[in-house]
């Protein structure tokens, strides 16, 4: 019998049979892992089996390739914290959907786990959350091997007036370096470089760029999946922030 214990955040849950639930959780040492929770729809457990919940997880299976069974011990619920907040709800849905769609199963990403926990702890903070989410998406791309290189212009090598990103290489391009290719490049809003005003419109524009790379690099490599619709709802919500 294989058994391990770890802490993780719940990404998704769907009912299995009449009493059980199949959950997916992001753990620090074991990455994204799925397993059955027996009695998961019971009144005792159901309130804790919600996306974003922090759980103490024990995973058991006879063979490593089996789906396995989780025993869950609730540590912290985030459901009540986000339920009345549209931005927090859309953010949580987008985060969970992206992790579920892009992360390979059972591959640990401790750095991304720590960033994800920090982002979940900020849920409900309307002032900080959109920018933190943008930085989290950049970190996600980095972790998946499609990180953007925004340090200098891919054409001139300089680091002045970087306002575009090459959709092909993911490298920054300056205004002078873009030349006639400008209309084929993606926008690089200053907020992605850590400068300028972090307004809703600017962050939404930056999320348009990160969304391109998530869709055309990370998800394409996994069988041309579309971007989760919840992410678009989040981008629309952020764009409407003043």
């Amino acid at each position, binding site marked *: 019998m294989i058994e391990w214990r770890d802490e993780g955040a719940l990404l998704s849950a769907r009912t299995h049979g009449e009493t059980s639930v199949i959950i997916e959780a992001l753990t620090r040492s074991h990455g994204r892992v799925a397993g059955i929770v027996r009695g998961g729809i019971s009144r005792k457990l159901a309130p804790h089996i919600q996306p974003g919940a922090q759980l103490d997880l024990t995973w058991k299976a006879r063979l490593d390739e089996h789906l396995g069974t989780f025993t869950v011990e*609730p540590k912290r619920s985030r459901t009540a914290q986000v339920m009345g907040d549209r931005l927090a709800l859309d953010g949580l849905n987008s985060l969970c959907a992206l992790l579920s769609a892009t992360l390979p199963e059972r591959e640990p990403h401790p750095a991304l786990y720590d960033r994800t926990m920090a982002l979940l702890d900020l849920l409900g903070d309307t002032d900080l959350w959109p920018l933190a989410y943008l930085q989290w998406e950049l970190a996600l791309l980095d972790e998946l091997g499609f990180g953007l290189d925004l340090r200098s212009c891919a054409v001139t090598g300089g680091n002045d007036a970087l306002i575009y990103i090459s959709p092909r290489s993911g490298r920054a391009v300056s205004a002078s370096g873009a030349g006639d290719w400008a209309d084929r490049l993606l926008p690089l809003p200053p907020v992605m470089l850590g400068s300028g005003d972090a307004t809703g419109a600017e962050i939404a524009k930056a999320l348009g760029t990160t969304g391109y790379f998530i869709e055309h690099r990370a998800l394409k490599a996994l069988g041309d999946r579309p971007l989760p619709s919840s992410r678009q709802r989040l981008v629309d919500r952020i764009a409407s922030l003043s």
Partner: protein
Amino acid sequence: MATDDSTADIERLIELMARLPGLGPRSARRAVLHLIKKRQLQLLPLAEALHRVGTTARECLNCGNIGTGDVCGICASEKRATGELCVVEDVADLWAMERAGVFKGRYHVLGGTLSALDAVGPEELRIPQLIDRVAAESITEVILALGATIDGQTTAHYIADRLQDVKVTSLAQGVPVGGELDYLDDGTITAALKARRSL
């Protein structure tokens, strides 16, 4: 039980019963045996009722409730045209509301909740029909009676954003009747504290 031609129909019935929620092969076998013993009293009336429901049950074209006509009794009743429309996730939720007997308006069954992971978008639910109904039936208040789950509340906010010209309310969340704080999860206590009211 040994299977031969003489018992094949009974075995088939047991197999079908065993697929019902709450039943397994053993309980299905007991139920079938019981029905056969009470043939006149239970088996034949049950078979007749199943046949009737099987041929007549359908979704109400207006609200999504299940009835035996194109329009269900609630939608057909003029007394229920109070201007209040209660939005529920599933027919089981509608029946639960009706059992409580406190709501006198009409319903709208969505058929699920938005779910990014299961790729359930607004078009997969009866949200466009809801928006049409609100305009067509002179609705004054839409009550969102959706689950206190992430998916349920995401759906509630999505609907509220699309119904700007009508009063939109949702069910309260907090301590259940007969509940003791000691046994409640921290999420429920947080929701209850946020929704506290003056006495």
